[in-house]
């Protein structure tokens, strides 16, 4: 049940009904592309927005979960007698409870565990759950449950997991599936042609999503109908999972997620806690709320896996790349996940000779989940640092070196064109806007405070597609209601959706109400993630609005006695293009009044065949490094982004800056630390796990939107942004730090310790 609803839609291409109105790209826009504040801004700043974490129902019980303290253990027995007798306790469930034998962690159609499995494969695995009157009573009862474990040998290190005799996380060895191998050309010949070669091993540490709203749900039964409020990125997969688990029709399950406090990929999967809350709610006939304590959010809700990447890359003295040999090792944690990182190495630069291998291993640690551009920031960390070193070896400016080698089509067999790919513009215009040359000349490589510049480029390998269904209703008073399935995970989905309707129908944004993320009342959308919400759902919104418009203009044309094609909507009026005398207020269209409303349905059209679509970006930064303390100060950052058409310039820029902060985390501050002796996470709190604060981000931020609509891809010309916003950031910082220090620290995060030790050893070498 895990990987089916990641970013990719597996299996046959979803069915896309024909739209009854074909939307064309707008010739010019007045709303789209402007800076718009959020349609639900007041709710967000007044504290009135109700998040799932805030839901409180009459009679509601509070749940807590008992987790295995061992990295690897067999559950021999569980004694819940004491817990059951405690004050306020209404339900205690374990693997012995009927109805809990629910298969969990699916990959390729098979499940590798259950809701409460007999084998715990990481410290944090669920063993039992309690529902009680208060959260503290539930927590106390959990502590009173006695479990006997047979503690097993464990392995937490990705390299050690492959060593002979390593403890097996699952039967059949610690390799997750087969290594992914991608090859083209003749590697040996390629390196033979090279005048300069760089070979290095890079490392990124395990990063935790850490959205601010903890993971959790509230479950309530009405007879055999279940309603769940869930902090999720997609309500429909949760509905589907719950229907399967409880063997109920999907229509009996309602999942609501109007507001949610961030996910970054960690809330794409259905949580075990959701199922536990629902089980206990049914047992007790009371609503049950389970929200995880922060510690559990750190240990048990996913992560970006640590990766070790070895890259060997060669170029001729004229700067042409000749060969790339890339190897990546990553840890899935306790359950299957593909910790691949090689896509950038395979496709970003034109290189005829290549071998790229991704190996993923099981370890006795929290399972990885897709995290904001899974695999890509790690791949950029390796590739983009190696590109800088190689540029220096052949004596070419790193930006020019990248431009010279950019791939302009997908190097598949046969090659495929990109629909629109403005990476050269990202690099060139970005460098100009950043003042790359001037900044490079300001470089300081001596003294206590050094200064350097760095850049990195990327694409993101996914752009969304069907299915998506949207309904727009235009009411008799000219206001509109927009109904879509997608969750607004903070990116501004509701706002750009309203902007599209406003652009198409001329209805002011503040007269549009948006209904979303509710399986009972909403239309269908795939979960919000993978930078695919805009390109997947915005064409469906446009198609729905266009369907309304076609009907409206048809009615108005009869009334005005003109051809529908002669009409357009301007400021709430239907106006004839050819005869300015002929116009009609939208609210004066008789059929609108007689019908009460005009409804339009829109579907996401299929993606074009024979081409691929990637959003892309280049980011630039300038840093200061204090060689006495090892501290890095990021002076400024610029992101140049091609995500197709910009819908909302305000949320576009802010998405880029948010991505940068997460990249700063990966590159400079964040790291899951596991205790080698116990396998437990020792920094599972915001104190010791360092999410950047307002003082850790760049002193100044800039965003350059390339804003070229990708008209060959979809009707709105849009590609995604959330993932590319974070992919190149850490690598750009690493390049800037190396520029300042004259030495390269290859392992993230670039903590004061790492910098200080590197500077120290540099001193010794000198």
């Amino acid at each position, binding site marked *: 049940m895990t990987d089916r609803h990641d970013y990719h839609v597996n299996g046959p291409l979803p069915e896309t009904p024909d739209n009854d109105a074909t939307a064309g790209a707008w010739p010019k826009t007045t709303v789209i592309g402007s800076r718009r504040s959020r349609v639900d801004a007041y709710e967000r700043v007044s504290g009135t927005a109700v998040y799932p974490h805030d839901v409180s129902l009459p009679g509601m019980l509070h749940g807590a979960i008992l987790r295995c303290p061992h990295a690897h253990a067999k559950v021999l027995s569980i004694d819940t007698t004491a817990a059951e007798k405690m004050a306020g306790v209404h339900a205690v469930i374990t693997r012995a409870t009927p109805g809990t034998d629910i298969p969990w962690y699916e990959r390729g159609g098979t499940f590798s565990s259950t809701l409460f499995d007999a084998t715990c494969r990481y410290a944090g695995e669920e063993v039992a759950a309690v529902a009680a009157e208060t959260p503290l009573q539930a927590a106390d009862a959990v502590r009173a449950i006695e479990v006997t474990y047979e503690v097993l040998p464990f392995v937490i290190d990705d390299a050690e997991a492959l060593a002979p005799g390593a403890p097996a996380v699952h039967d059949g060895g610690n390799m997750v599936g087969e290594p992914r191998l991608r090859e083209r050309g003749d590697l040996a010949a390629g390196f033979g042609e090279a005048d300069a070669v760089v070979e290095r091993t890079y490392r990124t540490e395990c990063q935790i999503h850490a959205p601010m709203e903890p993971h959790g749900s509230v479950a309530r039964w009405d007879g055999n109908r279940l309603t769940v409020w869930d902090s999720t990125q997609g309500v429909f997969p949760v509905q589907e999972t719950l229907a399967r688990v409880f063997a109920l029709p999907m229509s009996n399950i309602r999942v609501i997620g109007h507001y*949610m406090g*961030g996910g970054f990929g960690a809330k794409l999967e259905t949580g075990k806690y959701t199922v536990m809350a629902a089980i206990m709610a049914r047992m007790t006939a009371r609503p049950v709320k389970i929200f995880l304590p922060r510690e559990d959010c750190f240990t048990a809700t996913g992560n970006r896996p640590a990766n070790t990447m070895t890259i060997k890359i060669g170029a001729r003295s004229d700067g042409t790349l000749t060969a790339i040999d890339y190897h990546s090792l990553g840890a899935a944690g306790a359950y299957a996940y593909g910790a691949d990182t090689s896509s950038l190495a395979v496709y970003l630069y034109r290189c005829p000779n290549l071998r790229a291998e991704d190996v993923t291993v099981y370890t006795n640690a929290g399972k990885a989940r897709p995290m904001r551009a899974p695999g890509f920031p790690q791949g950029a960390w390796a590739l983009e640092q190696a590109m800088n070193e190689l540029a220096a070896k052949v004596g070419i400016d790193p930006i020019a070196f990248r431009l010279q080698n950019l791939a302009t089509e997908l190097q598949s067999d046969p090659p495929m064109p990109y629909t629109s790919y403005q990476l050269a513009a990202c690099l060139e215009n970005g460098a100009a806007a950043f003042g790359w040359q001037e900044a490079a000349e300001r470089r300081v490589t001596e003294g206590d405070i050094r200064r350097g510049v760095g850049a990195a480029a990327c694409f993101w390998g996914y752009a969304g597609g069907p299915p998506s269904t949207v309904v727009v209703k235009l009411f008799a008073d000219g206001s509109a209601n927009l109904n879509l399935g997608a969750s607004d995970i*903070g990116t501004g989905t509701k706002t750009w959706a309203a902007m599209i309707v406003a652009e198409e129908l001329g209805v002011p944004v503040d007269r549009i109400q948006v209904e979303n993320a509710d399986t009972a009342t909403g239309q269908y959308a795939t979960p919000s993630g993978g930078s695919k919400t805009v390109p997947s759902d915005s064409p469906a919104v446009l198609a729905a609005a266009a369907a309304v418009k076609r009907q409206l203009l048809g009615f108005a044309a009869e009334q005005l006695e003109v051809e529908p094609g002669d009409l357009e909507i301007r400021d709430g009026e239907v106006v004839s293009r050819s005869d300015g005398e002929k116009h009609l207020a939208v609210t004066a269209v008789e059929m609108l009044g007689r019908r009460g409303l005009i409804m339009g349905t829109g579907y996401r059209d299929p993606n074009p065949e024979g081409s691929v679509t990637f959003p892309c970006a280049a980011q630039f930064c300038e840093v200061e490094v204090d060689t006495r303390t*090892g501290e890095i100060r990021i002076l400024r950052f610029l992101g140049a982004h091609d995500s197709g058409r910009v819908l909302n310039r305000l949320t576009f820029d*802010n998405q880029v800056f948010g991505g940068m902060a997460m990249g700063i985390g990966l590159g400079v501050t964040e790291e899951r630390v596991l205790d080698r002796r116990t396998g437990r996470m020792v920094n599972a709190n915001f104190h010791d796990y360092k999410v950047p604060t307002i003082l*850790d981000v760049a002193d100044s931020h800039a965003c350059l939107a390339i804003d070229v609509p990708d008209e060959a891809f979809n009707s709105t010309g849009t590609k995604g942004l959330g993932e590319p916003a974070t992919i190149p950031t850490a690598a750009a910082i690493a390049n800037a730090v190396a520029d300042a220090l004259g030495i390269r620290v290859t392992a993230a995060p670039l903590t004061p310790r790492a910098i200080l030790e590197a500077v120290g050893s540099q001193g010794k070498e000198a």
Partner: protein
Amino acid sequence: MSRLISFVLNASTVTFDVPAGRPLLDVIRGDADLKGTKHACREGDCGSCVVLVGEPTGGAVRYRAVTSCLMPVAAASGCHIITIEGLDPGRIGPLQRPFVDEGASQCGFCTPGFLVSLAGHLLNCTTWDVGPAFNSLAGNICRCTGYASIQRATARILGTLRHRVDLDEPRFAALVREGFLPSVLRGARALALGLEPSTDTHGVDRPVAGGTDLYVQRPDDFSFADVALVPTRRGGIRIEGGEIVFAGSATAEDMKRSRELAAELGDMTGAMDLMGSLPIRERATIAGNFVNASPIGDMTAMFMALDAELELVGDGGRRALPLRSFYLGYKNLDLRPGELIDSIRIKRRPGLLFNFEKVSKRTHLDIASVNTAAALRLENGVIVEAGLSAGGVAPVPLALVGTEALLIGRSPDAETAWAAAHSAAAEAKPIDDVRGSAVYKRLLLRQLVLAHFQVIFGLADELVEVPA
């Protein structure tokens, strides 16, 4: 066990029959059913639970932004508590407008905390510059925005107020006049002045002062318990003859704001800002820092270098004890049951040069991986008095007595700095842990001791050139 606790919550007086130790957060979200205040950690680290606590003092009310997850509701008794709902004028007001226009709320979960922290800053700031404002927001984590939009919104608000509000005029009234605080709060503030202040309790084994250690370490012990509060409303920092006297309950922010202290030791802003975050510093007391006995307590390191003396009060009466004798071993103190640190004294020494340094992976919101304080005095160009401490390099906060002795009689030059740096690193007894390897901590201490000389004596290039 519960008590009747009354305070003013936003616009009206409320009374709850609740356990005195229950976190204010739970009373606000649960008993008062105001869900705008969020929580994302319950450990003081994220700022999503920040509320304003207005404490009536001498006819005025002083508002401070604090993390409600670590504060016993009993400490709110008699105060004016303002939450995000209390800042809401029922529409998008001038405080909220720049956040809206700049898109500073993405998923929005952190937004109430940021707005309340910012309101706290606006009520207290002594400049309209952005730097201190960003500092006061460093205890609020946002995972979505990357803070750029929050910085822009904050800068716009400060820019507006710079032209409208005189820094010297009564701030609360001015912010109400400008619409940054809803006018109903003015009446509520007056209500708070009429409330009986809370009655403090003595003599209980583990009294709560700021709660910023106790509520993190033992959260479950308090929710349903009565609780004894260390008296926090009197005290502060004062000069008494040849001594500077600190109430045990003086907070880190009190130290930062104290004019008396600044006159003796120089501006403390930089040093205190390195400790925790504003909502923590507003509650974190000096005595709490000592008694928590963390090897890396920041105030402990400062007072070690200053060679402070504790005045302890208990059933057995009063006794004085040097801070340097207070630590017997890891988390083992010379503190008798029921005894409280009433006050802390340091000798006034004109010309004393004080400096505090610390490094951690993330600048703020942080306990140091290594910290050190230095208090040096020169006569005729040579060091005649030296206090030097280090935290994070031994099981207890360390006075570097060997290095102190070495410094006496030497001139503050690069050679002395290097000698002190090496001596300090040798005196340290660090262990490997999450906060760093032992080797790294030694290296760091060496660098930080050099930094003392750099900051105090302006040595710079000389320090790089002298070989190790």
